[in-house]
C-alpha cells in the first residue's frame, strides 16, 4: 500500500506544471476549476491594481486575437494570489497567455499557462483505465469478457496477453495510419488495414513466444486465438485514428485499454469464483447472473466519471 502511495506521489510531483521563471511580479500560474486560472504574485499587490477584471488580457496561444472574457477576480487575503473566473469553461488542453496590464502601460507583463504534457499523458492512461473503462463504460469486448472470466488464472493470462497484443498492434497501426493511410488518402481502408494488422500481430506474437519463451507460450498461447475476435483490440486503432493521437498518446491509450481489460477481467473472475458457492435460482444460473454482476460493476465504475486528475 505504501509503495503505491509513494509511486503516486512521485508521479504527482513529476507532473506538476513547471513553474515558469517569470522575472516580474507574477511568480506562478496554473489552471483552477474548468473556468478558472489562478495567478500568484511574487509579493503582495495593491488590490485596486490586480482585482479589476479589465486589467487582465487572456487569450489562447493559437488565437491571440480572441480575447477571453474575465468575469471576476478573487484576491486572496494576503494579496498574493488572484483567481480569475471566466464566463465560459476554458479548453485546458491548450496553452493560454495571461497578461496583466496595470494602470500604467509600462508595467505590463505576460505569462504562459499550460498543463504539463506528462500530466496530460497520464490522464489519457487513467481515463482509459477507469473513467472510460472499455468493458464497463464503453461495453466493448464482452464476448471474451464473459467467456474467460470464470477462473482467476485464466483471467490474468487473458488480460496480460491482451495488453501485450494491444500495445504492439496499436503502435503498428499508428505508424500505418500516420505514414501510409493519411498521406495517400486511403482512410476508407481503415477497417481492412487495422484488422489485418491485428491478425498479423497475433500471428507474430504466437510465433515469437513459441520460440523465445515456451513456458510462457504454454500458459498464454490458448488465449491468443481469442484475441482476434474481440472488439477492444480493433477499437483502439479506430479511436486513435479518430482522435489524431500522437505516438505517446497512442501508447498510453493502448496501455490503459489493456490494463482496464485486465482489471475488469480480474474483478469479474474473483466474483464469479465466489458465486459458484452461492445458491442461485436455476433460471439465473450461468450467464444471466454474470450479466447482473457486470451491471453492478458498471454502476460502480460510473462513480469514476467525474474524476479529473490534472
Amino acid at each position: 500500500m505504501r509503495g503505491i502511495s509513494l509511486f503516486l506521489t512521485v508521479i504527482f510531483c513529476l507532473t506538476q506544471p513547471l513553474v515558469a521563471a517569470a522575472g516580474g511580479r507574477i511568480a506562478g500560474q496554473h489552471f483552477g476549476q474548468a473556468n478558472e486560472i489562478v495567478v500568484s504574485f511574487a509579493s503582495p499587490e495593491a488590490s485596486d491594481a490586480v482585482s479589476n477584471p479589465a486589467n487582465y488580457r487572456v487569450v489562447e496561444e493559437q488565437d491571440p486575437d480572441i480575447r477571453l472574457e474575465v468575469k471576476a477576480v478573487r484576491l486572496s487575503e494576503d494579496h498574493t494570489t488572484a483567481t480569475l473566473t471566466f464566463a465560459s469553461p476554458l479548453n485546458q488542453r491548450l496553452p493560454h497567455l495571461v497578461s496583466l496590464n496595470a494602470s500604467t502601460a509600462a508595467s505590463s507583463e505576460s505569462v504562459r499557462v499550460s498543463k504539463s504534457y506528462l500530466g496530460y499523458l497520464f490522464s489519457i492512461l487513467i481515463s482509459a483505465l477507469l473513467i472510460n473503462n472499455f468493458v464497463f463504460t464503453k461495453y466493448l469486448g464482452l464476448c471474451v469478457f464473459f467467456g474467460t472470466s470464470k477462473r482467476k488464472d485464466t483471467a490474468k493470462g487473458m488480460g496480460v496477453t491482451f495488453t501485450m497484443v494491444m500495445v504492439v498492434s496499436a503502435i503498428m497501426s499508428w505508424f500505418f495510419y500516420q505514414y501510409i493511410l493519411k498521406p495517400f488518402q486511403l482512410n476508407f481502408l481503415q477497417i481492412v488495414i487495422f484488422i489485418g494488422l491485428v491478425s498479423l500481430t497475433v500471428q507474430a506474437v504466437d510465433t515469437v513466444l513459441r520460440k523465445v519463451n515456451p513456458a510462457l507460450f504454454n500458459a498464454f498461447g490458448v488465449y491468443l486465438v481469442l484475441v482476434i475476435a474481440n472488439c477492444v483490440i480493433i477499437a483502439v486503432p479506430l479511436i486513435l485514428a479518430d482522435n489524431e493521437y500522437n505516438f505517446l498518446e497512442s501508447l498510453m491509450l493502448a496501455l490503459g485499454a489493456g490494463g482496464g481489460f485486465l482489471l475488469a477481467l480480474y474483478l469479474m473472475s474473483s466474483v464469479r469464483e465466489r458465486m459458484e458457492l452461492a445458491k442461485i435460482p436455476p433460471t439465473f444460473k450461468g450467464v444471466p447472473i454474470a450479466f447482473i454482476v457486470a451491471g453492478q460493476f458498471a454502476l460502480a465504475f460510473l462513480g469514476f466519471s467525474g474524476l479529473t486528475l490534472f
Partner: protein
Amino acid sequence: MATDKTNLQLIANGILNENPIFRLVLSMCPAVGISTTVMNGFMLGIAVLFVQVFSSCTISLFKNKIHPRIRIPTYTLTIATWVTVIDMVLAAYLPEAYAKMGIFIKLIVAFAIITMRLEMFACKETVNASFFDGIGMGLGFMFGMMSLGFVRELLGQGTILGYDILGFKPLLFFVLPFAGFFCVGLMMAFFNYIELAYKRGKRA
C-alpha cells in the same frame, strides 16, 4: 457435405434455436451498448444481416480455394471488406443513424457471431444453404436487438419507435447505459424460465 434442412428451417434455426444473442451469447457488445431504442436495434440488425449474408456467400463460393491454415485471416479480411461497404453506404445515406451508432458499425468486423458462422457453416455448405443460414442469423440478431430495444424503450421512455405509447416514463433506469447489462441478464433469465417451465410441463 450438405445440410438436410430446408431453407425455412435454416432461417428459423437462426432466429430461435441458435439465436445469436440469447442462446449462443455472442456479439454482446452492441446488445448492451446501443440497445436503448427499437430503431437502433433495427439499424444495426440490417447492417449485420448484410455483412453476414454477403460474407457467408463469399466464403461459400471460394471454400475450395482457401487454404485451411490461413482460413481465419481470410474470413477476417472478407468480413472487413463487407463492413467497409456497409460503413460507407450508411455514412452516405443515413448520416443521422450512423452518428448514433458511432463506432459499433465499424466494430461489426470483430463480431464473433459472423466469424463463427463462417467457420461452422459457410466453409462446408453450398452457397444456397449459406445464404439462408446468413439470413437466419442476421434476422436472429436483429430480433434479439429489437426485443431488447423494445423493453428498454418502453420501460425507459414510454415510447415505441419514437411514438408515445404509455404517456409516462415508468423506469428511467432502463435508459441509462449500464442498464443494458441488467436488461440482457433479466431477459436471458426470462427465456430460461420459459424453457424450464416447458420442460417441466413435458415431464408431467
